[in-house]
């Protein structure tokens, strides 16, 4: 096969906000010249047109130091750690991981819904503790199929969650910034009303100033004592102390949480609850979709340097 790797000089310069994850480095080192901002000399900083970031915050000050910057390329779906307003002011485009992780997150979201409603993790713990023979009856759980599911955020992830749960016979409705005419589900303008009409509330939207703490005490009261909250978005979407209180007091019936306000810290009160499924922010990925993300990031960078349309631009 013809070696298409450009020589060192010809590779486009891409600044790095933080060191690359190993999988990215291995796959992309031959195609781009990566220089860490912290290690770059003044000339390099002045030349850098593209910045590849990780999960560390990107502030206006960071952007101010890179006068030639035209692109901030992210490797995650969420870009709430980037000062998007500053990017917009400075005419800098931002790309994210697009739909590369959407399938995995949607799969995991559904996995959490089933795990909470059917108490899979609790049943597991029960067996592993050797209690099957000792304990007699086991409590009944509740049927997944046919539940009313309210999805907050019907984007790449939410729409895939909807399709999967529809196959379980669930009735799906949703809230989004604006209704999606092509979606065959009922649009509900207020999250509180969505919660009131749902048995399961799934969060799969971006974290922005508008959506911070979108799930508060009032929404949880509306969801109700048999209602279940599943969060595969961002911890900040939920008022976490309120969530703990609502679970403790039985205001809601259970929760499946992949994200928290201050990861990796998890409110310790949750550890003693068996109607809660906790997860270490694993919804986002499988090795298969990491490979997909690497390709998407590379494609965005290639498109940028060739002056072509970006593949997964974030609306600023």
């Amino acid at each position, binding site marked *: 096969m013809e070696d298409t790797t450009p020589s060192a000089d010809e590779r486009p310069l891409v600044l790095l906000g933080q060191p690359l994850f190993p999988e990215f480095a291995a796959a992309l080192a031959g195609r781009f010249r990566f220089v860490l901002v912290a290690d770059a000399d003044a000339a390099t900083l002045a030349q850098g047109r593209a910045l590849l970031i990780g999960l560390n915050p990107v502030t206006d000050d960071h952007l101010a130091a890179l006068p030639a910057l035209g692109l901030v390329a992210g490797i995650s779906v969420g870009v709430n750690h980037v000062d998007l307003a500053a990017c917009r002011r400075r005419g800098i485009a931002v790309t994210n991981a697009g739909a590369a992780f959407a*399938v*995995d997150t949607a*799969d*995991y979201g*559904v*996995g*959490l819904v*089933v*795990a909470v409603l*059917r*108490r*899979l*993790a609790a*049943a*597991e*713990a*029960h*067996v*592993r503790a*050797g209690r*099957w*023979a000792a304990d007699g009856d*086991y*409590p*009944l*759980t*509740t*049927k*997944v*199929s*046919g539940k009313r599911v309210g999805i907050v955020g019907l984007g790449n992830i939410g729409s895939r969650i909807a*399709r*999967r749960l*529809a*196959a*379980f*016979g669930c009735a799906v409705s949703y809230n989004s910034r604006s209704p999606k005419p092509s979606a065959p589900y009922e649009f509900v303008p207020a999250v509180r009303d969505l919660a009131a009409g749902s048995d399961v509330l799934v969060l799969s939207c971006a974290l922005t100033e508008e959506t911070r703490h979108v799930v508060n005490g009032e929404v949880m009261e509306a969801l109700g004592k048999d209602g279940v909250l599943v969060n595969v978005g961002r911890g900040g979407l939920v008022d976490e102390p309120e969530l703990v209180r609502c679970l403790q007091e039985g205001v809601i019936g259970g929760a499946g949480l992949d994200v928290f306000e201050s*990861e*990796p*810290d*998890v409110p310790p009160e949750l*550890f003693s609850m068996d109607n809660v*499924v*906790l*997860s*270490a*922010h*694993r919804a986002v*990925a*499988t*090795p*298969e*979709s*990491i490979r997909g993300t690497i390709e998407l990031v590379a494609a965005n960078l290639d498109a940028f340097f060739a002056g072509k349309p970006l593949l997964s631009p974030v609306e600023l």
Partner: protein
Amino acid sequence: NRKGVALLAVVATLKLATMAAAGGKPAVLLLRPVDAPFAAALRDRFRVLDLYAPGQALPALAFVAAAAAVPEPPRATVIWGGVRVDASFLDAAPSLRCVVSTAAGLDHIDLAECARRGVAVANSGEVYSTDVADYAVGLLLDVLRRVSASERYVRRGSWAAQGDYPLGSKLGGKRVGIIGLGNIGSRIAKRLEAFGCIIHYNSRKPKDSVSYKYFPNVHELAAESDVLVVACALNKATRHIVNKDVLEALGKDGVVVNIGRGANIDEAELVIALREGKIAGAGLDVFEHEPKVPAELFSMENVVLSRHVAVLTEESRSDLRAHTIGNLEAFFSGQPLLTPVHADSLAQ
């Protein structure tokens, strides 16, 4: 002591005769515990001879014999999986013409013997099918994406202390081989299709109504699948249908999910295959010798275990009540049973 048992038998027979004499309702022999709503619904319609009545101390077969001795003995019985309906059971209660089983499976009933004696058998139909299918998908997601393992990791404080938990594996695009495409298997297929899985199956005969790829035997199915789901009945043909060869054919990245019966899988070989990394993981709701679970599985992080709970939801419990009474009423009014089972037409 024998005198005590004999006395108990007399008392029981007298009690039963009293129960049986009340009103003109047909007698039903109840051989499984039921919750209050179920008990009330049965008593509304039938004279219930209840093995689990408070104070009833006779063991099962003795109770059956006592019930058979009352005037107008019961012609129908409601049983669950713990009651073996075989020749000796039917000998003990010759008045029985109908067995209504609330279990999901039928492996506890000698269907041929019932057929020989003209005893009709009704099963639980589709009462459990949706819940079992939901649970199977949940188990598969749990195994592939390590939901329960991640749960344990977080609860013991390892996330903060040790960092990220290893990633799982993508579900979409996987070839899922379903053993048994009946009420449960077909619902599993429909759900997994929405995740982008490719459905393969084995059944006694191919099904014209589906477009999934059919495999005439489980070995070939396993060889061309990434996941094997056991969703078939337990009978002579399907005992240990997943054996050492099948597990080897499934391969080191393969995952097994069992929501059928423990004995559908050669459990000892399964444990070996997991221990030696011959397959990648398993989700198991059933075991060969419940409630015993092979202890070796407890130390494996790539295995998800549960205690035969796939049917246990509030909804299926109330559906079961309505369904059982429906079958009993059909029988007593001379109508066809809602969900009759014939010796040669086991659901698969």
